[in-house]
């Protein structure tokens, strides 16, 4: 493995040099710097229940290593699945503070186990802890959506079924709603990718996030039918490798301007001021 590590390091060096060289003309001409590559979907911290990888632990050192190798400037991090999220959200804020300029923290909440307390919690997390958005696995209640609308943050939501997206998309057009996994984690239900594309077409506030789509043809279809304004790059790291997930977006071979939107420009528009 010694040889492998050596090659790895040379790669990074060469890549950083290339990146620095590529950035040079823009700096010299004083042109507006484009946003960094932003990975919009990544888990971090400790899980309470330890029943599966996604409830146990995600190490930010792995994420940081992948970011550096792939040239990802910022990563949106949020907790693993937990019964409640007070502690886990605090941990996210701590990780953001410990690695300045690397992470954008999102809170996570459970609409059922935390019902009644969500506005107060989210207010603290946004105003005091500096978290910039909300990640959801369960269908958002009115309580959640009202609070999110009040604080002006985006939601990244992985719905159990595509239909669960409609109430929020229809009822809260002011909230940017990002659908994780192009609607279907690991393309388990490939037809959901098609439904997700339709929802994004119909709703100005709905975006599709690219992580863990294993059937590349649906990423291609989404890019073709929706255009670059509706797609947001995410990895579902660190268990899904952001180096590979970024490569999948690059393979779409979008024009540079369109690719920059997918890789950071689109989400940057919806993040609260001071996120980058």
């Amino acid at each position, binding site marked *: 493995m010694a040889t492998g590590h050596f090659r790895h390091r040379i790669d990074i060096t060469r890549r950083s040099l290339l990146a620095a060289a590529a950035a040079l003309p823009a700096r010299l001409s004083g042109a507006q710097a484009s946003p960094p590559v932003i990975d919009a979907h990544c888990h971090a911290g400790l899980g309470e229940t330890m029943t599966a990888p996604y409830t146990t632990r995600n190490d930010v050192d792995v994420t940081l290593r992948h970011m550096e190798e792939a040239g990802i400037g910022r990563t949106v991090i949020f907790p693993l699945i937990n019964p409640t999220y007070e502690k886990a959200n605090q941990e996210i804020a701590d990780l953001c503070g410990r690695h300045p300029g690397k992470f954008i923290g999102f809170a996570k909440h459970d609409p059922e186990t935390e019902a009644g307390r969500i506005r107060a919690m989210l207010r603290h997390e946004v105003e005091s802890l500096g978290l910039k958005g909300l990640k959801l696995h369960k269908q958002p209640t009115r309580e959640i959506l009202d609070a999110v609308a009040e604080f002006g943050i985006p939601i990244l939501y992985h719905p159990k079924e595509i239909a669960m997206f409609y109430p929020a998309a229809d009822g809260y057009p002011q909230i940017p709603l990002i659908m994780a996994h192009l609607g279907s984690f690991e393309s388990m239900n490939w037809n959901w990718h098609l439904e997700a594309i339709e929802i994004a077409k119909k709703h100005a506030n709905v975006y599709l996030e690219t992580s863990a789509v294993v059937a590349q043809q649906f990423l291609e279809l989404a890019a073709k039918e929706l255009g670059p304004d509706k797609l947001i790059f995410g990895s579902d790291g660190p*268990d899904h490798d952001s*180096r590979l997930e970024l*490569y999948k977006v690059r393979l779409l071979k979008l024009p540079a301007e369109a690719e920059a939107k997918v890789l950071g420009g689109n989400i940057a528009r919806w993040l609260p001021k001071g996120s980058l």
Partner: protein
Amino acid sequence: MEEAGIAVSALVPPAKSASEKANQEIAAIVKRYPEKFLGFAIHNPEADRGRIREMLRHEVAGLGLKGVKVCRVPTREVLTAVAELRLPLLFHPAEPSDFHMIAQEFPQVPMIMVELGVTNREWAAHYEAIAIAQRYPNVYLGTAALSGYKYLELAAKELGAAKLIFASNAPERDSRVELRRVKLLHLAPADEAMVLGENISRLLASRV
């Protein structure tokens, strides 16, 4: 293939095909592009029962196919014929544990477990697949790892390059992405060459 620099792909009929017709079709495609493809026959152990040896002999000797793919646990009839013709077996199991009995009974048949053992997207199956590959010298793992890239890294670390075989499951999955998966392991060049072709070439070369 061209874009990624993949020289040869093993073509397998779609799952659940009627084997006779599907295998003929694969053979016809291979014949049209002999330098790009090699063909694997597909068989359904139940539907083809009683005829497998005869069919497989024809597919190998007559049609030039080089291996066998099954989607159900292969019966003794299937494995006896596969062993006789010294073919590699590609098997997409419902559970990784489907490999225990067949790997014990037919240690002379090289068996490749595709997708690092996962069909139902359960992460735990990857751990089981790695343990099974560790236990049986004749079991290899295909690299198209579904539930998280880290399991392929784990397999490379625990098993070494000799037990891994690059397999994309294209065109549903993108062979460019699947090749990238292997490259990202940053293996030493000799190890990477094993995963990307030498291992499977060796298994194919043992054919009668």
